[in-house]
């Protein structure tokens, strides 16, 4: 069966520090991968998606970047975190956009 792993579960970082969140998928090949951010009590904001290794599409210009160095690995990064980067970050995968998305348990990022 397919599983998605996302870590860390919680992270507290100072303003201006770098960020690296990792997501890996097991049990499937060539998935579409997604990074979302969710503000408290709000909806899902799509940040990046990838349909293959090295292929990244950005939805919202911002302080973050994404990379897909391997088929089932998706990384969200920042060189210098801002206070506005705080939120709940979710990784997800699907085989096609007309099939279910499967989400990880998220990373709660707090910027101090």
């Amino acid at each position, binding site marked *: 069966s397919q599983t998605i792993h996302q870590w860390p579960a919680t992270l507290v970082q100072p303003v201006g520090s770098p960020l690296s969140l990792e997501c890996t998928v097991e049990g499937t090949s060539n998935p579409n991968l*997604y990074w979302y951010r969710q503000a408290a009590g709000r909806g899902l904001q*799509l940040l990046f998606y990838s349909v293959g290794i090295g292929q990244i*599409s950005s939805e919202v210009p911002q302080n973050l970047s994404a990379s897909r160095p391997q088929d089932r690995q998706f990384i969200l990064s920042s060189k210098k975190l801002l206070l506005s980067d705080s939120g709940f970050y979710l990784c997800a995968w699907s085989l096609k956009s007309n099939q279910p998305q499967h*989400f990880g*348990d998220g990373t709660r990022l707090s910027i101090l």
Partner: protein
Amino acid sequence: QQQVKQSPQSLIVQKGGISIINCAYENTAFDYFPWYQQFPGKGPALLIAIRPDVSEKKEGRFTISFNKSAKQFSLHIMDSQPGDSATYFCAAGNTGGFKTIFGAGTRLFVKA
């Protein structure tokens, strides 16, 4: 045209009552309409999904009603229970696309 509009934003229902959440879309290319359930601190999980070749799909206490001509679909939760208290997202996707478009979410609270 890519938006999915979801209402209400929040909903309070008595235990045993019916919870109804509505969504509307514009893009007639959408051919997959899932609903996701999210508990606090967790990622969304697929609850039930429908394709436009049927007008209704039922799984246990959860039913999706789909009106293709009106470009609307809704989630009905029968015999609502306190354990159903969560945030619900409708969504839409299409064959050949890469993204799933999510509604803004509905926070459901079922009073015991």
